[in-house]
């Protein structure tokens, strides 16, 4: 019956949809709306703190502060976006960062110098992602459960390795990543931009990206078209793990240390950013640009609350509200009120 309803709905709509309502521009429209939200947040800042926003140097510096704040979550969100478009979810990203960070800063790892530390962080990220992927594709565990188990286990292991101590990074090279500003722009922001650009190319210009959309959009159709769905699903979690490894290096550098409690609740921020950016939680649709805008909106809010000396509690409540609003908008898909009413009428009868 649902297909009848869908057919009734779509047939006339397709005919009179203008370019503005065209499906091809839907993600563009959504991203423009997100840019609008960012501008609105900027305006709120300018109104509440006119003295600060009147100083151009401060504004530029503050922008970099926001971008630095966004950089680690941003890198993680790129991986998360792939996983969600591919029809899965990765709840273990924060725990992977903690494990990778702790592993990279053990006395043993540090003895190999910065190269050894970076290798350790990336290898741990990829390795944990591989375990997630194998459990989900070949062990047929539900992604939610598999990565939830990993969330608990990886943090446990990180805590075990570090002996619940904060491990100081003694590598100048690693610690400098967060404090160097080539051409006046923080290196972390370059890293963030590089990962985001790579993610965009991977999603939009490669067979990997095309498979991701196919596997998430309709796994059965992908399988019957000859795509190896299981192998691809596995690779998605490996990619997410790799992003976490990169994030772990960045975060360790910022703190000049690592500990088992680091990157706490990053999974929530990354998922929320992807969803706000228009990634469909059911899979098959999403954009890197949208996810990045989602990340930027969140860090701008955090920044806004900080400069106004407001509590994190209020901030979290606002973030929760934004997530709900974003998903509601997603459901209505910018369609007109009359269509929305028509749909409700049809489902009731």
């Amino acid at each position: 019956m649902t297909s009848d309803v869908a057919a009734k709905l779509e047939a006339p709509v397709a005919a009179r949809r203008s370019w503005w309502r065209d499906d091809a521009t839907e993600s563009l429209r959504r991203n423009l709306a997100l840019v609008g939200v960012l501008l609105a947040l900027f305006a709120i800042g300018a109104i509440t703190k006119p003295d600060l926003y009147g100083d151009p140097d401060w504004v530029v510096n503050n922008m970099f502060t926001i971008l630095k704040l966004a950089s680690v979550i941003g890198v993680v969100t790129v991986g998360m976006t792939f996983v969600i478009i591919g029809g899965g979810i990765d709840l273990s990203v924060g725990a992977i960062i903690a494990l990778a960070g702790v592993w990279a800063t053990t006395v043993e790892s540090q003895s190999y110098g910065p190269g050894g530390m970076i290798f350790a962080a990336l290898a741990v990220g990829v390795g944990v992602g591989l375990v997630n992927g194998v459990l989900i594709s070949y062990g047929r565990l539900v992604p939610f459960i598999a990565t939830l188990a990993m969330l608990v286990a990886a943090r446990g292991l990180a805590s075990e390795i570090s002996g619940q101590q904060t491990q100081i990074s003694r590598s100048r090279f690693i610690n400098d990543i967060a404090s160097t500003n080539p051409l006046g722009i923080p290196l972390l922001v370059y890293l963030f931009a590089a990962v985001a650009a790579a993610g965009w190319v991977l999603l939009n210009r490669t067979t990997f990206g095309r498979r991701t959309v196919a596997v998430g959009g309709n796994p059965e159709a992908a399988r019957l078209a000859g795509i190896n769905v299981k192998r691809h699903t596995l690779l998605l979690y490996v990619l997410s793990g790799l992003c976490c490894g990169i994030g772990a290096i960045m975060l360790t550098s910022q703190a000049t240390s690592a500990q088992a409690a680091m990157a706490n609740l990053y999974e929530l921020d990354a998922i929320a950013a992807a969803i706000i950016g228009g990634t469909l939680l059911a899979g098959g649709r999403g954009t890197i640009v949208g996810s990045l805008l989602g990340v930027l909106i969140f860090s701008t809010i955090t920044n806004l609350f900080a400069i106004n000396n407001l509590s994190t509690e209020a901030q979290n409540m606002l973030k929760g509200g934004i997530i709900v609003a974003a998903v509601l908008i997603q459901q209505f898909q910018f369609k007109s009120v009359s269509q929305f009413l028509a749909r409700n009428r049809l489902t009731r009868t």
Partner: protein
Amino acid sequence: MTVLRLTDVVKTFPGVRALDGVSLEVEAGEVHCLLGQNGAGKSTLIKVLAGVHRPDSGSIEWQGTAATFATPQAAMKAGIATIYQELDLVDDLSVAENVFLGHEPRRLGFVARGAMVRRTRQILGGLGHAEIPPRREVRHLPNAGKQIVSMARALSREARLIVMDEPSAVLAHDEVGNLFRIIRELTAQGIAVIYISHRLEEIREIGDRVTVLKDGRTTAANLPARDTPTRELVSRMTGRTIEYVFPAHTATTPGDELLRVTGLTRSGEFSDVSLTVHSGEIVGIAGLVGSGRSELLETIYGARQADSGTVHVDGRPLRPGSVTASVRTGIGMAPEERKAQALLLGEPVYRNITLAAFARYARAGFTNTGREKAVAARVAERLDLRPRDVRRPVRTLSGGNQQKVVVGRWLVEDVRLLLLDEPTRGVDVGARAELYRIIRGLAADGVGVLLVSSEVPEVLGLADRVLVMREGRVIHSGPADQLDEDRVLDMVMAGSLLEEVEL
């Protein structure tokens, strides 16, 4: 006493007139059989009775008064229960919870579990199945048991009419006898039964009267079930008003052997199927839903793993259970459910057309969308896809054009063997003719085609050779021009002409 009278009921869906003036009269205490081919309107009719669909026009008279059932709940409340083929039970609930789902006995606002279990036991006992434990989860029951639970649910609602949609399809042979015993007990209490089945021998055994549907119309009403000749029943179901337009059959000699299937078996689905397809040849498989045809096609394709038997292409064994290997060998399949199994609805047409081929156009992992669009545009041209713009999302296309996209996916590369499962389901007449032309054209180019369809005229009109499947076995194989619709239908349904046919 007439409990139900339908007069000239019409129900249209976009592009299809599913019911085009159906009349039906059911008396209390009778078993009224509905007969008709796939697409004749039986499913729509029972959904109208069950309150799922509302008719556009025509009247329904229920127990002497005019009635419309706005919701399934309303129909159930009025005393009409429907037992669907797929048995819509909740697997995770217990037998008793399923029986009283939606009308649980209550005490002080809480479900009176004890009373519910007691009543369920009573009803099951009345059906002669006291051995089914009311507290057992439904998932642990065999199909026959689930059917009993569905019937108990109907009785718990005090149904006066029970509609059974192919109840015997899920049952083993000896279980059908038990079903008939229950049906007889129900009718003895004055309950009316609408019985849908494709098996003539069952209709003769259990039925009182028969109404025949064809293309959404009643073509014969209230025939005596026991002694109407098979010939008459079959001819009422065929002799259609929808014209099938087939391109002229050009006499071509088939090329080399392309596909050889030997003794292919998947337990519970089909057994010991052997067949060959030559290049340039169209082989049609006729059979009912549930005869194992779709499963057979998917197994040949590698989407399912066979229990035993082999598949050879060009004399070389095909890697079993690997769609990727099949696609690489030049085999393509257009599955039965285009929305669930074939299309990425939100993605543009060209990406759907190149879904099986985009990796071959890619260089070093980078997709070549320019080439993909060009290739897709050529396919769209060849299939006369409307609208022609390949950047539109598939979702915005009509059913027929979506189906063309599904078939078009395999015109992109050098496909040599095409497996088509119900290629014209839900497709309107015009698009049908085009699809037929395309399939013929492919065969003329040397592609081997294995075609499954529930519509007998389609199989006969398109195929060079026809296999008839019944209950997982190939019961007949021979040239299409030596068969006619009546004969195939008879084999598919009753098998009574089987003796005359040499295998």
